[in-house]
């Protein structure tokens, strides 16, 4: 069987981004393999370990994406295909270009991040499935293969469902799908010798970015007075943490 992870390189969520002349300036940002895509890489390696076959990394993006591709290879994937194009491409255009490369590879399973951390889009996985005419399962938290079919559990807004789809199919990841491994030192050394096939492309973006800005966040400054009725204040705090902040 053949398993493909479609990956992207994005700014680390901890890096501070700057806007320069209406454009995000990535020159001082730390760029990493998208953490949602990391689940995809881990899953294709696990599927290969379980079912045999091949694990392949496919990426579409500028030359700098190679670092993220190498990281995925260091984690243990066999080889990679990198469609190289500088500049912005909207997810639908990306999906069309990726679909072409994927069709040629003819994998059984394609996995990609449930969300793209840089432009916060969730479109890439479903758009790839659409372009290929394959089924898609989004926000996957468990995946089992059996007789040319897949049984998958995926998150819904307030719950989850278990589905069966025929292969080939596209799955997008959700936290909880697996625990991505660290690349090992021997893995990093071996990754140097693994194949990255570079294919220059020139797709025309259907969406043009005119200007970018960063949302300024400020604190709400909400203070609960616990001096008069500490019980009521504590209950209110729990309610706010649960319903508004959604952290508990």
């Amino acid at each position, binding site marked *: 069987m053949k398993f493909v992870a479609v990956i992207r390189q994005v700014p680390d969520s901890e890096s501070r981004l700057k806007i320069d002349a209406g454009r995000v300036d990535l020159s001082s940002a730390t760029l990493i393999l998208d953490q949602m895509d990391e689940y995809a890489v881990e899953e294709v390696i696990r599927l290969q370990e379980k079912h045999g076959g091949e694990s392949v990394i496919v990426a579409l993006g500028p030359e700098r994406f190679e670092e993220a591709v190498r990281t995925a290879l260091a984690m243990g994937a066999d080889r990679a295909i990198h469609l190289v194009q500088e500049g912005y491409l909207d997810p639908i255009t990306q999906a069309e270009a990726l679909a072409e490369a994927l069709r040629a590879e003819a994998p059984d399973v394609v996995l990609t991040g449930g969300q793209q951390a840089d432009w916060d889009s969730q479109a890439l996985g479903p758009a790839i499935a659409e372009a290929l005419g394959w089924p898609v399962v989004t926000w996957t938290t468990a995946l089992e293969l059996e007789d040319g079919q897949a049984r998958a559990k995926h998150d819904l807004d307030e719950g989850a469902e278990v589905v069966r789809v025929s292969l080939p199919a596209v799955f997008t990841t959700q936290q909880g799908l697996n625990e991505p491994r*660290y*690349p*090992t*030192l021997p893995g990093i050394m071996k990754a140097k010798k693994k194949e990255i096939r570079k294919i220059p492309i020139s797709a025309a973006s259907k969406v043009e970015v005119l200007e970018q800005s960063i949302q300024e966040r400020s604190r709400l400054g909400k203070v609960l007075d616990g001096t008069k009725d500490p019980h009521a204040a504590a209950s209110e705090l729990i309610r706010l943490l649960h319903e508004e902040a959604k952290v508990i």
Partner: protein
Amino acid sequence: MLMAVLTNDQKMVLDMVRQVAREVLWEKAPQYDESGEYPWPQLETLAQLGLLGMTTPEEWGGAGLDSVTWVLAMEEIAAADPSVAVILSVTSGLPQYMLTKFGTPEQKKKYLVPLAKGEWIGAFCLTEPHAGSDPASMKLRAQKVPGGWQLDGVKSWVTSGGQAQVYVVMARGESGISSFIVEKGTPGLSFGSPERKMGLHAAHTTEVRFDGAFVPEENLLGQEGRGLAQALAGLDSGRIGIAAQAVGMARAAFEIAKAYADERTQFGQKIREFQGVGFKLADMHVKIAAARALTLEAAAKKDRGERFTLEASTAKLFASDTAVSVTRDAVQVLGGYGYHREYRAERYYRDAKITEIYEGTSEIQRLVISRELYR
């Protein structure tokens, strides 16, 4: 920044090490300091990632990494947990280095491979209760017996004593001092309990006793009578690791102080805005940057295959001095909180002091440097 001159592979190694250091080592370091437990789970994680044999050649189970990357990786590990860092520095910088350099193919296969893979930890036995800075005065005897040697005597301050599976031991025989490979479990080999130390609680240090311990012929390491020279060559390499460990501790304490000075307000302003604190932070930064540069210089010289005794001692002397002064200043910046265990600064201060002592005191480094200047 330095990152700009690193290759992509070096960056990938450091990214991995940084992530593991932050997620695995940093979290548990205070617990290990409190309990004084030997950090086996941490070492197993590092072993699985191939980090216990970073510079040992690939053909002997290591990763064949250059020393520059090793130094940067050591800094990250030491910043997260200095005890784990010294165990790692000793096992790879001393026994693995000596086996790589002086071992026979059979010895490499039997001992170096499991050490490099991190299946085993290695220890280095040079110091004795009455032979510290003057190792040539060692008393541990190696007596020739049929089929090998019999060792009698005591070694002290052995990092990973009792935990390590392989001991590289320097002992005196008829033709001078020689190095021997001794396996844990050898009859006549025993260990003291872990010493009660000021810092580095998780990195066990014990006495190692030899009471008629038999070492077979094939476990002589390198040339007979060349043991002291071989050990000193090992220490040149080990000192680069200790310098990196010192830089890591200094950096971690500095980062704690830097963050604290930005949050703490007194007299209506952030304390970093007081020149007394701001200048202190500036000096700490400069010392760390200089110590790191010296350590990388020694590593780069080693990578080029040149003699690096002078550079290793220079780096070790300056970096250990930096570690002690920066960690002390970090405690000072935090004031009362710096003295509190929860804020971690005091632990780095306690851990740092030993870097001025082990693998050659600062005085011995000055002795080495002053001699190397006229070499």
